[in-house]
């Protein structure tokens, strides 16, 4: 009974954000050769720089990382397993589509705030097509339209990056996972812009049904997020460093795009 209570408290507000970009298609660009000194490079084509992260809080971060690992394994994994057990795959895909479609304001507003007006227009078209021709977003019809199939998703953290706000130190957030000080602010922005959370945020009392949409949003993301987390951890030499490197590299690609 007690754990049920805990879930109810935790789940509406939270979603893991390890590498939340499965719907993004980053356009890979040729990396400019990183500035490596001769003693750092192992051969003429080696352009892998070693230093990529500012992590002055490493001690604290490692502790939070360990705590999160426990939460994921003992609290979230059973929920994810249960969800996968009771919903067939096509249904999960449909649920994902509906939630991603509803998240439209996050992508639309942030495209606009970054001056990417063409992208904002594409997002609006996508939302229109999927909502009206895709039964409220259940079917992602926009995937069949070449000009709308690969629009990179913008988020608030990208907007802050675009505005040249420094990312600050690396920060492992409790439950939510890897972030930076700036990206944590971006996360709050995304949360506020997502209509799915509006009911809960505005009337967050546990007696009405406002918690349902946001809880659903968290639960439906768990299987994918956990498998991404597992993948960043699997076969690593130091899981903490692997997840950190994954986070920084991925965010860099997303911001540049």
């Amino acid at each position, binding site marked *: 009974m007690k754990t049920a209570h805990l879930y109810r408290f935790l789940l509406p507000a939270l979603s893991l954000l390890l590498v939340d970009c499965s719907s993004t*298609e980053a356009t890979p660009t040729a990396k400019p050769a990183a500035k490596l000194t001769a003693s750092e490079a192992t051969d003429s084509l080696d352009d*892998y720089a*070693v230093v990529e992260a500012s992590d002055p809080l490493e001690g604290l971060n490692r502790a939070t990382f360990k705590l999160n690992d426990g939460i994921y394994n003992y609290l979230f994994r059973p929920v994810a397993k249960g969800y996968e057990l009771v919903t067939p795959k096509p249904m999960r895909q449909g649920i994902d589509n509906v939630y991603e479609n509803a998240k439209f304001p996050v992508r639309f507003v942030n495209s606009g705030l970054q001056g990417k007006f063409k992208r904002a227009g594409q997002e609006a078209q996508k939302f229109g097509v999927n909502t009206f021709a895709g039964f409220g977003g259940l079917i992602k019809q926009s995937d069949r339209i070449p000009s709308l199939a690969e629009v990179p998703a913008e988020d608030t953290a990208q907007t802050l990056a675009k505005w040249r706000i420094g990312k600050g130190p690396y920060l492992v957030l409790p439950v939510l996972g890897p972030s930076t000080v700036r990206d944590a602010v971006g996360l709050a922005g995304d949360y506020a812009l997502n209509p799915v959370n509006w009911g809960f945020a505005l009337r967050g009392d546990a007696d009405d049904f406002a918690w349902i949409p946001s809880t659903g949003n968290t639960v439906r993301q768990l299987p994918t997020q956990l498998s991404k987390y597992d993948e960043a951890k699997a076969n690593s030499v130091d899981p903490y*460093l692997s997840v950190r490197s994954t986070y920084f590299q991925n965010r860099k690609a997303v911001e540049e795009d």
Partner: protein
Amino acid sequence: MNRHYITALLFVLVALVGQAAEFTADAEKYLRSTVDEVLSVADRASDRHTLADKVRPILLRRVSFDAMTRRAVGPGWRQFTPDQQKKATQLFATLVIRTYSNKFTPGEKPVVSYKAALSPASGRVDVPTGLVYKGSRYSVTYRMEQEGGWKITDVVIEGVSMIANYRTQLDAQFKKGGAHAVLTSLEQSVSHPS
């Protein structure tokens, strides 16, 4: 006189561009056959373990584990003895093969689309691909280098380079305890069940 000069220059340019295009096309062709081979094997495998076993010989032929290991270790590589280098390469190859084959679930077939290849440096070609797998889209860029034939030297998934990721980890190990620490840590993760 002047005109001849320009014509000659144009010819040279066209020839150069043509050669570069052939160069990247060659790398792309090579990548396609590798990916096709892996996918057909992955499709027929019954479970993850047989999948890794079957993918292994293909990757050993088509991937430069020498370059991968050297760069994953980074500056410390020069202080490895030849024996240590050999051992590190063997361990790292096993780790990479496992990482790569773990990304496939037998029975789920990814759809791969190829985009225009780039050549950011001579002897190197990046082939960006798009992958639709289990209903999600991913960008996967293969880095290939000329090494007596084309070899894959890195895989960049959603902006995350596998080699850069290991470099962060292994460089930290090297700074902690030199070649010995790197080898021990590699041994540990190889012996861990995945």
